[in-house]
């Protein structure tokens, strides 16, 4: 599951997370006990439809602030490690 989500975790962390995941899955099982017969599945928790904004520009972030959240930057851009593995 860590690989699917592209997360790097140590073995110790893996043990800890596995325990936490069990708790989460148990909670989900509790949800499964609720009687949902006749209830349509939904993707949205609030009954809102057609929520739009008008096409009016709002200020963007100053570039320094925008870039500050990235681990590394260069030439005003986010810098990321090589995308392809060697064998590709």
């Amino acid at each position, binding site marked *: 599951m860590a690989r699917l989500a592209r997360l790097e975790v140590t073995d110790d962390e893996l043990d800890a997370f596995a325990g936490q995941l069990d708790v989460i899955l148990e909670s989900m099982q509790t949800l499964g006990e609720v009687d949902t017969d006749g209830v349509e599945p939904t993707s949205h928790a609030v009954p*809102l*439809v057609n*929520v739009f904004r008008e096409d009016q520009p709002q200020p963007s972030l100053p570039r320094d602030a925008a870039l500050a959240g990235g681990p590394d930057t260069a030439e005003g851009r986010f810098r990321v490690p090589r995308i392809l593995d060697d064998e590709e």
Partner: protein
Amino acid sequence: MTKLSTYEAAMAAYEPVLGLETHIELDTGTKMFCGCPTAFGAEPNTQICPVCLALPGALPVANRAAVEATMKIGLALNCRIAEWTRFARKNYFYPDMPKNFQTSQYEEPLCEDGYVDVAVDGDHYRVEIERVHLEEDTGKTLHVGGATGRIHGATESLVDYNRAGIPLVEIVTKPVPGAGDLAPEVARAYVTELRDIVRSLGVSDVRMEQGSLRCDVNVSLNRAGDAWGTRTETKNVNSLRSVERAVRHEIRRQAALLDSGEKIHQETRHFHEATGETSPGRSKEEATDYRYFPEPDLAVMEPDREWVERLRSGLPELPRKRRERLRAEWGLGELEMQSVVNADAVEIIEATVAAGASPTAAVKWWLGELSRRANETGVELGELRIGPEQVAELQGMVDDGRLNDKLARQVIDGVLADEGGPAEVAASRGLEVVSDTGALEAAVDEAIAANPDAAEKIRGGKHAAAGALIGAVMKSTKGQADAGAVRELILSKLG
């Protein structure tokens, strides 16, 4: 070296099936889900915000203008507009989206089941549209450390998210069988028609060279009567001409493989403008488990029918109808109109006619001399430094007898060189038909004296010999005489 069949051999053995997937960037003032501006060419990462960057707590809200523009496109393509539709997350790992997903639509697109009619060589084809949906564009990556900016061999990449989040409309056709050996032309005609339709709606500038219209081309081959073959998807097709070339190349490449008993792999391929060939894309692009799921942060959309009908009745005259109207008004034949359309000259000719030129003259200038000039300098007609008003003015001077065609072409030289409008150029370069009869007569007399043999032949009834004398007069007047008047004068003197 890629093995290729000849196109003729491929067509003798196989039938192609096309599919086209087109992405169009809308020209809204702000992005799809936030208020960031969308100006082209801004400094990197100056048009991004917490929503663009998917910072914790940021809440996207859909841009009404983008939803409306997409519905207009759907209506213009004869689609049905969904009564209930929602966005979905398309999950993938690639740094062009900081969220690790692209907001798109999955099972419930905004528009479905339409069609576009195109004409090629007088034959009509109906290209059926499967869906039109709304999503967001991705950021731009700059690959560093490898050969010439390619991702292969790069040691790192630099990312600009200004483009990430700009509304993007995806238009997918159903498979298009039956085009036969005209498949490359049908593909091109479809993309051209789509571009013109969207342009007429005023919702995108649809410029392929700037990437606001991008096209992926699917091609498969099968033997007559067999089931459809395995298709390839060619990306990077960045001009109308490339659409045609990419289809033609894939047909020839696949035919060669099938001929030698090999199988076609369902894969993504990249088109190379320089060679006109395609090459396989990265294998990882095929890992297409996008784990789509409904986007919980964006409300479901239920476009009410009143809204849809208001949009439908507000649609402008669409290109096909407009072309028919103009063709009738201008008195052109169907094939002639096709040339005008293929030269992308409909608008410019319309403007020239509006400025006072006759349709015949406007078509003649723009498809003839001016197309030639545009080709020579590698620009579009609309980019020439001469406009519809100036062409109309030029034609007016020809109609008045002040210019002949040769002089008019010299006036065009001057206008293209920024020397001013046609009248100014004619005045400053001294280009005007010699209408002074005395001067003309002197020039004709001189020509007769200098060419006694030709003069004798004309006297003997061989009027064809007048050409030599006309040439001499045009030369001595530096082309500024009216050839018809000169001919009449010569014949009357020697008749």
